[in-house]
């Protein structure tokens, strides 16, 4: 059962033929994405090759501090990515800190529980388990947070007059912002809900497919995938709620004012 087909670099190059075809077609149709496509492809190749090397050496060195350092770096990159994906961002250090800390806290707790209570590798922080788990949970939490913050900031900016109308009639800031906080949280939850609804019927998740391709029994692969999906959905939900509440708090003040002046519009 544990036999798996080793891929050669020629196989991988051949697999990219269809992507190349996409590039040629996009040039022909003047889609204006050829440049982005090339950059994204090169980034992916370089990043994955590097991460492969990095993981291999991390597995050999097996240092808890190095593993922690890599985990923190991953959180830092994700925080920057969340920040970059918002059309209207909080000004100053809070712009990156709210997304980063919400994600770090929720993903950190969920990943710790998964490692110490569920998977129980020896040692519990073993990079071979800790980093892939963290990466999978974080990738999804990142999407959830950036969607919810983008929704919240856009809605608060657009509905300033309606929110202030409620404040003027004596509502407190939480009452006035509540519908938009809910809307933002829903937006952050949607990818997890959609993914869980479609999984196994429409899509076969990458991790499970990868395990099956590398020879793992499908039942075992499914068990792993279920655990990962529970962790992903749980951590994403917590991260979305923390980030949305944190950002709503930062966009109001202790005199129950809406502080749209703390937002900065980035691009059209």
């Amino acid at each position, binding site marked *: 059962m544990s036999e798996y087909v080793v891929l050669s670099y020629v196989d991988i190059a051949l697999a990219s033929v269809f992507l190349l075809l996409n590039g040629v077609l996009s040039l022909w149709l003047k889609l204006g994405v050829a440049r982005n496509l090339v950059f994204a492809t090169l980034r992916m190749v370089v990043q994955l090759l590097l991460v492969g090397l990095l993981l291999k050496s991390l597995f050999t060195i097996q240092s808890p501090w190095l593993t922690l350092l890599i985990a923190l770096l991953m959180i830092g990159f994700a925080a920057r990515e969340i920040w970059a994906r918002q059309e209207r961002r909080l000004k100053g250090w809070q712009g990156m800190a709210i997304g980063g800390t919400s994600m770090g806290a929720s993903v950190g707790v969920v990943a710790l529980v998964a490692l110490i209570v569920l998977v129980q590798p020896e040692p519990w922080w073993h990079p071979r388990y800790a980093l892939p788990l963290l990466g999978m949970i974080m990738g999804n939490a990142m999407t959830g947070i950036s969607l919810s913050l983008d929704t919240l900031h856009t809605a608060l900016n657009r509905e300033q007059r*309606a*929110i202030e*109308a*409620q404040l*003027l009639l004596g509502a407190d800031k939480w009452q006035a912002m509540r*519908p938009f906080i809910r809307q933002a949280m829903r937006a952050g939850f949607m990818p997890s809900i959609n993914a869980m609804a479609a999984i196994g019927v429409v899509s076969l998740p990458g991790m499970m497919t990868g395990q099956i391709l590398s020879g793992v029994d499908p039942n075992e692969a499914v068990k792993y995938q279920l655990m990962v999906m529970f962790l992903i959905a749980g951590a994403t939900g917590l991260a979305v709620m923390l980030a949305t509440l944190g950002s709503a708090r930062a966009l109001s003040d202790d005199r129950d004012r809406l502080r749209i002046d703390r937002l900065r519009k980035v691009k059209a």
Partner: protein
Amino acid sequence: MLEIKALSRLHIGPVSLSVANGEIIAITGPSGCGKSVLLRAVADLDPNEGHLETQSGVRAEIPAPAWRRKVGYLPAESGWWADTVAAHFETPDKIDPASLGLAPEAMGWDVARLSSGERQRLAFLRLLEHCPDVLLLDEPTAPLDAASTALFEARLKRCVASGVSVVLVTHDPAQATRIADRHFVLDSGQLSEAAHV
């Protein structure tokens, strides 16, 4: 009563002003001189400095929502957060839209179909529900015709008769003369009393 001492916000101020119970003061000034900025600051809707008080207490000692219930601000363009007019009122059954020349069934309308004049009058009725001590009105009759303006002013005078203090921002000098007890001009961030009403 509204007492304002050394209120500053952005390029406005320091502004000091005292409005007695049952008094209407009018503020005029060129467009963009900061009349709305001043009213927003009094309502504590933007960060500002200064000492403000009404008969209900000192602003700094009262939670902001309680202050805004007592110091009712009607912006030039009102905000609406629900689909129907009635959803914006605490006791829609007790509201009489006809008193401001609106159709009696206006409470059942959708906000989306309201004209700017209807919005303004309904927003005024919504503000009065909380029986504020002070009214801050930002060009309240700009979208209204003469007949509706007269009804609005009559309603305002009823409020004043019951002791409400009013700060009225207007672009209409005739209105300032007609209903205000004193007339101020805001220019270059400073408020000064006009010689004649």
